[in-house]
């Protein structure tokens, strides 16, 4: 050890010159023995106090946008990802996908070493061996180097250029940078109309927002910045733009619209033309099935709205035409420069290879013209439709190399696997917004370091390629990728070391030079296909093209629309379902020309009655035979092929029945075929967190019409609800504890007559009883994206319970999501999605969706407290409703008595490593927050208002001998929220902004009539009904 430290000491000095303070840690630990499990540091490096977090600004690689993230690193382990407040793109917010990158880093199925497939059997090899084998393969492939294929998961920044350079040095063609979730039609149209792949969209400045199936809140483009801006637009209340969604399926974005025009799939073009005046309204009405009146109204609205913001994300064969038509409308309404800003383009979407280029490459493989193929990140065997028959083509490639660091369907077809480092473990960069470079720095040393002496640390692909070049004897190679990278960024190392804490450098990267691909549309005419219902497939907002499926957080997080997790499903309209006698949960067989899949039915108001919709992302299967999985003891040799233990064998892959087709934009056609469905007779309870989708007039999610906001209360058209909030008076913030602190513990019989009030005393040193922690949730902002839920899982060590083995041992069902079916999910904060209107599920009648984040309301008079026989839950002086896990015996009476049903019980030993129900198999347990205990079997738990953060900043203030500042800190959910809907603070101290929001005219408590005096204040959603349309009723 000492020797190592000495060695590392030398390294440290050398690095400090280069790096500056913030990355010294890594330099040291980068060459230490494998990280110990109990105490990460035997010798603590400089700048690192054990138990105190270090924060590293880096870049998110979970989608093409490239948001800025901050990794909270404690004792050398990254424990939480948060948005980077200084980043122009996401301004401190972070979506569920981005936060879950942590589970890619700590994925229990990650490859620990390179692996080689020798006659069918996989065996682990050393890094030196791996490098040798790769360079041999590369030199062996020299003759047909021109035919080599390198497929890389798309990312912006310098790496693509580095990669092309490397390939060129071996005479290989430039790589294909793939992103199957990208909307190529929109990108193409943008390029033609605005000269940028993805101009920034400004919803705030729009007078009217119209979306043709563009799900800008859930996956279409850069969701987080778009959501931030959309929420700001909505926050203008009566000044906010109306939002009309046109499309056959109502996605999460669609549910946030004020009006939904359910058009026939493929008929968007007609509507777009009608709106732009190129076509007639009536023709569009007949083609799309949307009433002409509605179209006419929209047309007039659109004409009046200057500027408007119209976006198109249709997935049909005519996608490009729609996108171009829409662009025309925008230009007409003067949107360019106001609501559509090419100047601040999101450069992350530049240089994505068209899907038809990928298909062409596949065909080349099938033709046998490929000597060597590399795959990094992209999982083509799963993300390409079965019709592409990738596996068969791939098998014809001479030598197949995968850089994937988790087992997936593609890497299992390869000869050699050299696991790449996770993006949180290596250097990189990105240019998310034109003129701003986001830096990517390692937040910790690799989870699985090598023991090799010649290869000191596990190598990222870039470094690996450098090694290969060196072995191949090519001269003037950079020492390592980092050195090369720093030469690429304007300002060089000095600028970088200055910028590292903030994570951004201003300036631009050299653009990657690639020949503009000629798109060869491989169109399939949907009209010619058989079937009575149109099949709409869409990328799951959480799992994407399937990339997220091996992350338990994303599997456990209910889909924002259907609220189903750990499963796939078929959305079908109530009318159609009734006609075919289909009930929720009936297993359907969906049949197209290219195949059949089975999935349970989800009867959904928001899908066209002539269509069914299926999400893409599940259905990970394995071709390699998988060893029997023993979750209890995690054996490294048990590689869980088929994208890991959490993804394998869950649901069906909609791409199996999708015919192969690309539109004129070069993107895959996701609405490509009709399908016929039949009941299989099987039935399953959907693993859904949804109880009743209707709130039965109980006023949980309340709304008010924009028009009524300005009126005096008497004239407002409000729902008459039990306990509808009187806007002047919010009892929740009148904490009874505070009252007690004023001199009486409440009882005349109290022996001390209020003299000994212990911690409730007003002059108690921490002054706790002066405070009243409270929270406001603005339903006008909330879009239901569920980022807060994942943030809570991450911050509070909440176990995921849906994996198929997390059930009882004897005579118990072992199917994914079983515990969810049983309602045993542990989401401390949950997103309720209620439907309003259209009670009898008629097609063509519009309905409204309301989202309510529901967590412990921290009641002043908490019903859960007095019923606990052991004081395991009681009232803290600062108004918190405290849960004492060690004292809890598990009577669950508190949950029975909780009107909000926000208490969750540990049914199994999710936190006990020796149980098969264990939720954090090594190294997933590295993600655990050391400030929060992992709850044991048989105790109750619930939202604590992130009490660990409260106490931390209280103590910090105390240590610095100062009062707490307003908005000094916030809870995990509020911090992550990309809509800025959640605000947390001290309601008793005007310095906190929460106090202003509480005074809002829209404020109300849920179930106020129960006099629980809750500390969570909701602000009513604001509806913008079309002129003359009926107002929404609760």
């Amino acid at each position, binding site marked *: 050890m000492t020797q190592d430290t000495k060695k590392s000491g030398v390294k440290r000095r050398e690095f400090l010159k280069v790096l500056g303070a913030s990355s010294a840690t890594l330099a040291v630990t980068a060459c230490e023995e494998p990280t110990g499990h109990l105490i990460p540091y035997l010798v603590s490096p400089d700048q690192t106090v054990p138990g105190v977090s270090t924060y590293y600004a880096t870049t998110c690689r979970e989608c093409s946008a490239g948001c800025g993230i901050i990794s909270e690193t404690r004792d050398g382990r990254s424990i939480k990802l948060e948005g980077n407040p200084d980043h122009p793109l996401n301004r401190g917010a972070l979506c569920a996908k981005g936060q879950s990158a942590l589970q890619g880093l700590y994925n229990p199925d990650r490859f620990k070493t390179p692996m080689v497939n020798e006659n069918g059997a996989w065996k682990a090899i050393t890094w030196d061996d791996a490098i040798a084998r790769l360079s041999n393969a590369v030199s062996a492939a020299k003759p047909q180097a021109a035919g080599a294929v390198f497929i890389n998961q798309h990312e912006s920044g310098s790496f693509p250029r580095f990669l092309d350079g490397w390939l060129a040095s071996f005479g290989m063609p430039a790589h294909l940078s793939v992103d199957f979730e990208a909307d190529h039609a929109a990108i193409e149209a943008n390029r033609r109309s605005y000269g940028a792949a993805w101009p920034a969209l400004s919803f705030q400045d729009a007078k009217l927002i119209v979306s043709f199936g563009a799900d800008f809140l859930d996956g279409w483009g850069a969701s987080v910045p778009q959501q931030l801006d959309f929420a700001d637009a909505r926050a203008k209340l009566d000044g906010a733009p109306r939002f009309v969604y046109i499309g056959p399926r109502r996605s999460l974005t669609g549910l946030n619209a004020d009006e939904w025009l359910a058009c026939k799939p493929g008929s968007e073009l007609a509507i777009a033309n009608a709106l732009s005046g190129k076509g007639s309204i009536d023709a569009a009405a007949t083609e799309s099935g949307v009433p002409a009146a509605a179209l006419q109204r929209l047309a007039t609205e659109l004409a009046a709205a200057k500027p408007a913001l119209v976006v198109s994300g249709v997935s049909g064969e005519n996608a490009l035409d729609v996108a171009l038509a829409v662009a025309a409308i925008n230009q007409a309404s003067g949107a360019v420069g106001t609501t559509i800003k090419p100047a601040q383009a999101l450069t992350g979407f530049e240089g994505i290879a068209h899907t038809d280029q990928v298909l062409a490459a596949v065909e080349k493989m099938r033709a046998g013209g490929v000597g060597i193929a590399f795959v990094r990140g992209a999982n083509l065997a799963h993300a390409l439709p079965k019709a592409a028959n990738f596996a068969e083509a791939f098998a014809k490639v001479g030598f197949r190399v995968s850089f994937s660091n988790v087992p997936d369907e593609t890497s299992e077809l390869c000869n050699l696997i050299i696991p790449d480092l996770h993006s949180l473990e290596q250097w990189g960069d990105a240019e998310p917004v034109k003129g701003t470079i986001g830096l990517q720095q390692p937040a910790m040393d690799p989870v699985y370091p090598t023991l090799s002496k010649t290869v000191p640390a596990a190598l990222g692909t870039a470094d690996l390629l450098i090694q290969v070049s060196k072995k191949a004897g090519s001269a003037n190679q950079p020492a390592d990728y980092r050195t090369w990278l720093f030469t690429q960024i304007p300002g060089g190392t000095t600028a970088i070391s200055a910028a590292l804490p903030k994570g951004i450098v201003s300036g631009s990267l050299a653009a990657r030079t690639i020949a503009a691909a000629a798109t060869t549309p491989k169109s399939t005419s949907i009209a010619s296909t058989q079937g009575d219902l149109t099949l709409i497939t869409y990328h799951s907002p959480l799992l994407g093209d399937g990339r997220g499926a091996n992350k338990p957080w994303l599997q456990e997080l209910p889909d924002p629309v259907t609220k189903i997790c750990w499963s796939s499903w078929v959305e079908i309209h109530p009318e159609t379902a009734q006609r075919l006698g289909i009930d929720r949960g009936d297993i359907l067989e969906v049949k197209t020309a290219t195949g059949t899949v089975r999935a349970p039915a989800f009867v959904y108001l928001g899908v066209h009655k002539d269509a069914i919709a299926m999400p893409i992302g599940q259905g990970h299967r394995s071709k390699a035979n998988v060893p029997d999985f023993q979750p209890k003891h995690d054996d490294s040799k048990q590689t869980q092929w088929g994208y890991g233990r959490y993804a394998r064998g869950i649901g069906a892959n909609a791409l199996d029945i999708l015919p192969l087709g690309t539109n004129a934009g070069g993107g895959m056609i996701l609405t490509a075929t009709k399908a016929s469905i039949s009941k299989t007779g099987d039935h399953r309870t959907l693993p859904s967190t949804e109880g009743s989708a209707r709130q039965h007039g109980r006023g949980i999610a309340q709304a008010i019409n924009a028009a009524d906001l300005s009126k005096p209360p008497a004239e407002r058209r409000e729902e008459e609800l039990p306990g509808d909030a009187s806007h002047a008076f919010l009892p929740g913030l009148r904490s009874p504890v505070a009252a007690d602190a004023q001199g009486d513990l409440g*009882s005349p019989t109290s022996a001390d007559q209020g003299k000994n009030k212990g911690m409730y005393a007003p002059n108690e040193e921490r002054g706790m009883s002066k405070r009243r922690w409270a929270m406001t949730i603005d339903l006008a902002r909330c879009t239901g994206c569920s980022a807060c839920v994942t943030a809570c899982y991450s911050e509070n060590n909440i176990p995921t319970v849906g994996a198929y083995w997390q059930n009882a041992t004897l005579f118990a069902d072992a199917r994914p999501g079983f515990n969810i079916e049983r309602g045993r999910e542990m989401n401390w904060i949950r997103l309720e999605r209620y439907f309003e209107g259209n009670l009898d599920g008629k097609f063509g009648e519009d309905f409204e969706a309301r989202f309510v984040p529901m967590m412990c309301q921290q009641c002043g008079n*908490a019903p859960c407290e007095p019923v606990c026989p052991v004081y395991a839950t009681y009232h803290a002086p600062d108004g918190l409703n405290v849960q004492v896990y060690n004292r809890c015996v598990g009577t669950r009476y508190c949950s029975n008595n909780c009107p909000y049903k926000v208490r969750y019980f540990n049914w199994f030993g999710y936190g006990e490593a020796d149980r098969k129900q264990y939720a954090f198999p090594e190294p997933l347990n590295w993600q655990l927050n050391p400030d929060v205990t992992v709850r044991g079997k048989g105790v109750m738990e619930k939202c604590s208002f992130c009490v660990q953060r409260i106490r931390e900043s209280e103590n910090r203030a105390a240590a610095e001998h100062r009062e707490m500042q307003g908005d000094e800190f916030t809870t995990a959910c509020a911090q992550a929220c990309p809509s800025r809907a959640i605000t947390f603070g001290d309601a008793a101290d005007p310095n906190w902004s929460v106090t202003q929001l509480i005074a809002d005219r829209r404020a109300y408590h849920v179930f106020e009539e129960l006099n629980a005096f809750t500390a969570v204040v909701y602000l009513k959603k604001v509806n913008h009904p079309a002129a003359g349309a009926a107002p929404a009723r609760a």
Partner: protein
Amino acid sequence: MQGVLGAFRELDSAVHAIEDLKKERVGDITVYTPTPRHEFEHAMEHGPSKVRVFTLIFGLAGVTFGYWIPVWISDYWPLVVGGKPIASWVPFTILGFEVMVLIGGLATVFAMFGFAGIPRLTTTVGYDPRFSSGHFGVWVEAEADTADKAMNILKKHGAEEVRRER
């Protein structure tokens, strides 16, 4: 302790025998009867049992204690739950009542033991197994001189068996 034991088949003869013995003031009388009979109570002219006093006293003690426990517990560590008063005496009535019944009831039993002189280790002197099943027994404490007199009285009233014991 010595005396005479007479076993009767019939109730009335036993009662008459007792009345005579009392008239003659022979000695302390103990009656054994398989089941409590009012006839004997009248004949023996005992006052009411003192058990009731203990029931009352300990009942009151119990209710006090039963109230005191929760009040003390609540004030020892004043924790606010559900915004209720720390020492909310109304629900504590339940505990008061239960503890009253517990202590009062047990006290009654032990008082009964005390008064009735049980548990006792031996039952030999002046007892006959018949008394638990069907016969009525009369035990008179009598010295040698008065014993004959007692025996005569018992015999006269038709005792099935009369014997001296010591």
